């Protein structure tokens, strides 16, 4: 059983590695999303990435023949996915006055708009609609060497940032008022957080879809909360849990012929439930 899974690495090794690295990179930034208690920001950002992909797919034919070549290329939808997720993370993560709509309301609006508009944009484009359905369903079959390189860089950068600035990240996440009082430029940190979250989710969407991206963003940190006594430790345990769950998901996918993204998220959800039971 395991030997068969190991044999499959020759064919799917790149996809497996991308899944592991994507899960780890998403969980790295997800720790700070969970610390800020903004779980549904992750859902909104993931769905907004899908809107970005839909805009790219629908705009390419309008731009003329030269742009048609981009349709088959992963670059344009990738760029649009990242732009949409960074913009959403920045806008929804902004501080609001007491009179403004709540973060939950904004997240809900972004999620619903980004779920409905892509289908309308691509309703008459069989290829495009198929792509959007694939993203929403979440598959892990199309990873490329470019994806592998991007996620390796992202995971390494996330680890370096966590090692160098976990205190600042934590203070900015849980107590921005004190962070300002202690001299942190919170506007810059907010921009960095939006960029990090947007990059991780926007890149993951193309390779793995919204379910995998949202699940690996928030479930590993939620599970790590039950295993760790400090947030700084969570910042290292959560990516390890994400990567381990992705590996197990690929194994289950290979062994039982089920979608590995769904297997990964289901395993993580079970892990969170166990950690909640352990805390009771």
């Amino acid at each position, binding site marked *: 059983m395991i030997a068969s899974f190991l044999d499959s690495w020759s064919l799917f090794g790149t996809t497996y590695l991308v899944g592991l690295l994507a899960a780890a990179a998403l969980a790295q930034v997800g720790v700070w999303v969970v610390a800020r208690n903004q779980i549904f920001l992750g859902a909104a950002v993931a769905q907004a990435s899908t809107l970005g992909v839909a805009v790219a797919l629908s705009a390419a034919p309008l731009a003329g023949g030269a742009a048609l070549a981009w349709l088959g290329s992963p670059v344009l939808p990738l760029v649009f996915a990242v732009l949409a997720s960074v913009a959403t993370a920045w806008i929804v993560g902004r501080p609001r006055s007491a009179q403004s709509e709540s973060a939950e309301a904004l997240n809900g609006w972004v999620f619903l708009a980004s779920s409905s508009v892509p289908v309308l944009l691509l309703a008459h484009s069989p290829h495009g609609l198929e792509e959007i359905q694939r993203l929403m369903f979440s598959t892990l079959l199309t990873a490329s060497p470019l994806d592998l390189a991007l996620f390796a860089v992202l995971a390494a950068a996330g680890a370096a940032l966590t090692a160098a600035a976990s*205190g600042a990240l934590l203070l900015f996440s*849980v107590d921005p008022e*004190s962070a300002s*009082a202690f*001299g*942190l430029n919170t506007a810059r940190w907010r921009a960095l957080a939006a960029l990090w979250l947007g990059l991780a989710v926007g890149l993951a969407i193309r390779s793995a879809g919204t379910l995998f991206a949202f699940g690996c963003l928030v479930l590993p940190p939620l599970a790590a909360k039950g295993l760790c*006594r400090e*947030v*700084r430790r969570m910042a290292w345990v959560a990516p390890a849990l994400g990567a381990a769950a992705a590996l197990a998901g690929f194994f289950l996918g290979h062994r039982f012929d089920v979608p590995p993204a769904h297997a990964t998220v289901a395993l993580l959800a079970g892990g969170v439930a166990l950690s909640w039971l352990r805390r009771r």
Partner: protein
Amino acid sequence: MPPSAAEALVRARGLALGYGGATVVEGLDLEVRAGEEWFVIGPNGSGKTTLLRAVLGLLAPRRGELWLHPDVANRAHVGYVPQRSDWNPALPTTVREFVSLGHVGTDTPRPERPERLRWALERVGLGGSERVDFRALSGGQRQRALVARALVRRPRLLILDEPTEELDVTSEASLLDTLEELVRSEGTALLFVTHELELAFRRASHVALFAAGRMTAGTREEVLGGDALERAFGARVRLGGHT
């Protein structure tokens, strides 16, 4: 090394502060020196927190001059204690991790931080509690942890925004004793915002009294001894058993 008692840390001359198009308070004149205990008092919305925001560099003056000592201007040696800790109760943390957040924005070398942490916890009566779950602390202990978080910065100026608001009488007295000892031994200056007039009457060396868009500042006797309080609050105020 404790700073000289005469050294000025904050100086305001004819300062006006506000938000958007509105001026909240104007004509602010005060000088905070090392070792002084300033209590900032006044009704809600009178400009107390606005002054704190200006001293913390979060609000630019509309008019007048606000001079800050370099150690205050760069905020590496400024401590800040909010009204309460809003720590997400579902998020695990220890006293060590929570108090260590005070190192953010300082240049304290990493090897010195554990010792600084132990010193700060001892000062607030939480010595030996590094590994304790922060969420298991009482309200008074959490407030002490917030003070310890400010102390690890070795502050020359400690700014406290209504830190005793939610404390019982015993916890309040204990916290205030800790602060007094800190002022005596380290020469730290305090800017303590409260609307408990009695506290200022009992503990302040200096008082900044906000009312009707203006501020009266000086020693406790100057500000609380005359009729400034009555003018500020529009009614006779009874303090320390005297009307």
